[in-house]
């Protein structure tokens, strides 16, 4: 059942308390607020090293209003597995064990742990919020950084293609895989709820804007995310093991057709991290984006 903006307002309690440590305009905090908020009476969070370990707060208290376990960078999905099994043993499997982490853990250092949990079909949901960069440590390239992005470790522009974790999870036989965008929160929360309705390992990657690391106006946070979808940079889809079929999601459907897309430069031009991007880089970025669509199309 589609989630409407109205449904977003119905939630058990605020999961993210006011006055948290996220930067102004943080898309990750926004996504957290709605998704975790929608299951805040049943959620158990596992958070690897990331901005989420910072924006939850420190010292005095935390802004996360649900049980939260902070883990080592590569440990989350295994910790979540242990929690899920322990809850099962205790007959508390109505609780939802959710990993909330960045692209660094999901795409890089923690991917073996994640694939392992997926392989075992652990009953957890991994939400990878991606700012395409190691945000917490100041913006170094991650496996999810796209071609052309200037990061602290690729000052002249990243040259390697984007690691598409959702595809890896599809190949790895996850129960459910979806992508989402902070600009389309209803769609995200719908997928989030749907994922939680399945037994097994579920994975959602949400594209969120990160004003400081993208060197963007915080006010453009949502606009950039929306353009990410509209330019085709970020395909919105769901894939289900049972059907082995990828379905484009309503807000992103028309961008499956290249003709409907806005030029990628609409998206890059709002972000300082793409300042100075060359034409060749832009072409390479477009090519890599097309590569992703081509992979996806195989499942459509």
């Amino acid at each position: 059942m589609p989630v409407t903006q109205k449904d977003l307002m119905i939630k058990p309690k605020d999961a993210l308390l006011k006055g948290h440590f996220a930067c102004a305009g943080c898309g990750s905090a926004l996504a957290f607020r709605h998704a975790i908020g929608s299951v805040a009476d049943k959620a158990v969070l596992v958070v690897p090293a990331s901005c989420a370990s910072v924006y939850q707060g420190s010292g005095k208290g935390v802004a996360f209003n649900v049980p939260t376990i902070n883990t080592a960078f590569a440990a989350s999905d295994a910790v979540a597995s242990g929690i899920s099994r322990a809850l099962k043993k205790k007959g508390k499997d109505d609780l939802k064990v959710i990993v909330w982490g960045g692209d660094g853990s999901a795409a890089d250092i923690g991917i073996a742990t994640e694939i392992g949990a997926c392989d075992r079909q652990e009953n957890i949901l991994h939400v990878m919020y991606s700012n395409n960069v190691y945000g917490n440590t100041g913006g170094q390239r991650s496996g999810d950084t796209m071609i052309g992005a200037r990061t602290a470790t690729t000052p002249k522009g990243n040259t390697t293609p984007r690691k598409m974790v959702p595809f890896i999870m599809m190949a790895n036989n996850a129960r459910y895989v979806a992508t989402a965008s902070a600009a389309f929160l209803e769609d995200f929360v719908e997928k989030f709820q749907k994922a939680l309705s399945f037994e097994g390992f579920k994975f959602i990657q949400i594209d969120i804007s990160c004003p400081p690391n993208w060197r963007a106006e915080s006010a453009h946070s949502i606009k950039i995310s929306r353009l990410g979808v509209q330019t085709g940079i970020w395909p919105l889809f769901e894939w289900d093991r049972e059907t082995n079929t990828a379905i484009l999601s309503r807000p992103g459907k028309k961008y499956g057709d290249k003709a409907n897309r806005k030029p990628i430069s609409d998206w890059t031009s709002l972000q300082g991290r793409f300042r100075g991007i060359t034409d060749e880089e832009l072409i390479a970025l477009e090519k890599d984006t097309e590569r992703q669509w081509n992979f996806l199309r195989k499942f459509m």
Partner: protein
Amino acid sequence: MVVKQETKSMTGNDAVSYAALFAKPDVIAAYPITPQTTIVENLSRFVDEGKLDAEFIIVESEHSALAACMGAAWSGVRTFTATSSQGLLYMAENVFWTGYGRLPIIMPVVNRCLAPGWNIWPDFQDSMAFRDAGWIQMYTKNNQEVFDTTLQAFKITESKDIALPSMPCLDGFVISHTTGQVDLPDPEDAFEFVGPYDDPVIELDVENPWAYGSMTGPDQYSKHRRDLMVAMERAKKKIVDVHKEFEERFGRSYGNGLVEPYGDDEADLTLVTLGTIGDEAHEAIDRLKAEGHNVNALRVRTFRPFPVEDIVEFAKKNHKLVVIDRAASFGHDGPLRIEVEAVLKRHNVDTSVSGKIMGLGGEDVPYSAIIDLVKKELKE
């Protein structure tokens, strides 16, 4: 009154497995590595056969093995894992996390040396590398002791006033794969000794949420570390108490649980050891005494917390300690020797100390080699 027990023939790894079986952990996660492997295999068999009602998580690495146990520990259930050597190193980050985070996890380490070259034989280089990590470490001398120690470990570790993970250590192959006799209590008696884990050190709760391990400033941080230091101090007494309770119930003891002296109170030379070399040293001592030499021994059973007072007491009554290390802190000396020297210095004990590093990478340390060492040291 000592309960009924049956003597069984089994390997050291079997003994560990039975101790775990009897303690009824709720969640087990482990990853195979020689020579720990048969523990994992035994436990998966127990679970598959329905002998043990536990969740068994077949993880994809040791980092995840311990992480999964940590997840279970945070959920307030009894957890168990085991590892060795490269596996212990591969989970290093979580080993420290568990110790500093006070998570009550029991993890026997089947001691094996560290690569390169690949070598599956025993020394203590692996567990010694974690002597700062906030874990209780007990080194055992034979199959019986490793069973007893693993059982005791649950009780010590899970006490809320201790809340320190435990690492019972057993020499790879020499204990793990060697068949010997173990007096096995009835599972019920063993479980009664350990007790259920019903007052968890920590337990997540959706009704009363908290966040564990968020960013911490120096103040809070050092408060936690001071508490850890103090808990280690308290653990000494706890180990002695649990060991005594164990003795009353099962009739077996290893010195006072911290150190095991052997031979006369006073001697010309005292061997200070860890692990099976301690057992072998007893053999050496008996033979040396038969030859008229006046030697005794102190086996350090508990290495963390380090039994400073017991070592000092024993040393005071003696004249010369010879420490046998089965590990080296490269660029200095054997860790046991260094720490024994340190505590004698600290407590102004005159007794001299010397030492030798033996048995690295599975080099055999027969009693004859110990006898040779003693004779050489007696001459000096």
